[in-house]
């Protein structure tokens, strides 16, 4: 009985392993910059190309970066929740306008509302590369020490907002 139980146990262990594997998303790419220092964000402001914006001003604060574009459908879907996030979390939400036309982006904000503290314009996607952006929308949570604590790829949903982002921000804010 003991002898026949061993292959069965091994099979069950393999079953558990494969079952857990089925619950994972094969297309998910883990954030390489998690718990690392956030790359410096220095660019021209979306609203005025003469103005330079930098994330240096946000040192010592918990803040969020929302990567979006006017051509991105998911960004349109999540936009009300980004506004909700800015309201309820009471932390600065900075926008990174990714590979977008300046005029189109400004029109988009005028139409759908502008919850951002400021928006950096990244027409070539170079800042996006520095932050490891591979899809829009993407939202990062940065803590007081400038480390990226969380990255959410895809539109923010109410579950993500209330279940993940707000609790995290509250715990980081102290």
């Amino acid at each position, binding site marked *: 009985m003991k*002898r026949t139980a061993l*292959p069965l146990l091994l099979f069950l262990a393999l079953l558990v392993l494969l079952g857990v594997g089925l619950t994972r998303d094969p*297309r998910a*790419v883990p954030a390489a910059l998690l718990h690392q220092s956030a790359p410096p964000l220095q660019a021209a402001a979306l609203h005025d190309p003469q103005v330079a914006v930098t994330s240096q001003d946000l040192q010592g604060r918990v803040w969020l970066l929302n990567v979006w574009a006017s051509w991105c459908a998911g960004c349109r879907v999540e936009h009300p929740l980004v506004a909700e996030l800015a309201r309820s979390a009471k932390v600065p939400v900075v926008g990174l306008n990714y*590979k977008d036309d300046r005029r189109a982006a400004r029109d988009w904000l005028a139409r759908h509302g502008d919850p951002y503290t400021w928006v950096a314009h990244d027409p070539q*996607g*170079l800042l996006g*590369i520095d932050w490891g952006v*591979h899809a829009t929308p993407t939202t990062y949570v940065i803590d007081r020490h400038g480390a990226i604590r969380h990255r959410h790829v895809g539109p923010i949903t109410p579950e993500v907002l209330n279940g993940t982002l707000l609790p995290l921000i509250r715990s980081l804010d102290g």
Partner: protein
Amino acid sequence: MAERLTPGAHGRTPTPLLRTLRLLCLVMGLLVGLGAWPWASPDAVAQTAVAQTSTPSATAAARDAETQRIAATLRCVVCQNQSIADSQSGLAIDLRGQIDRLLAQGRTESEIRAYMVQRYGDYILYQPTLRPATALLWFGPFALLALGLWVAWTVVGPAARRAADTPPPSDARPGHSDMVADDGQRQFARRLLHAPASSLEEAWAAPGAPSAPASGRALPSEPPP
């Protein structure tokens, strides 16, 4: 008479069927292990040690070729089954441009790969670096193969040997040549084989002999006249 597997001559060698099964397990395990091993794409293995195009006189065409070569060794994060050289996604185009820019700045290939990994993680490499976190990926298939071999030899092997050694059912009858006889029957058979004709009746009278017919006929299998 129902067919059944004949055991091996001494009960120790496994039957042909079990031998085939074990070989099949071994071959399949080997194939799974080889298939799961993180083979590098050919370009990733053939990294040149030659210094990259950092001299001012490097032509744009040479840099283009170098960009393509390096891009072919990196996986597109968006179109995940293509390399950055092959993919036409926006990110791949941007990253090819970035590789070109970095080459123009004089970065080496390993610096460029480190740059990509720092931003996009190990996933962008076709061959993950060997770290404690990736040890399971690298050695897991071979560990599974070793486990399979161990199971085959320690569980299936003795089970096969035990099956071969099991005595036959007790309803074995003499005169049926495909049934293995018990000791008494074997002794009786030996006496019959080696005894001269005159002492056949003694062989029949000895203990262990099957009950003889009343007529005294020595060979019960002879048909009556």
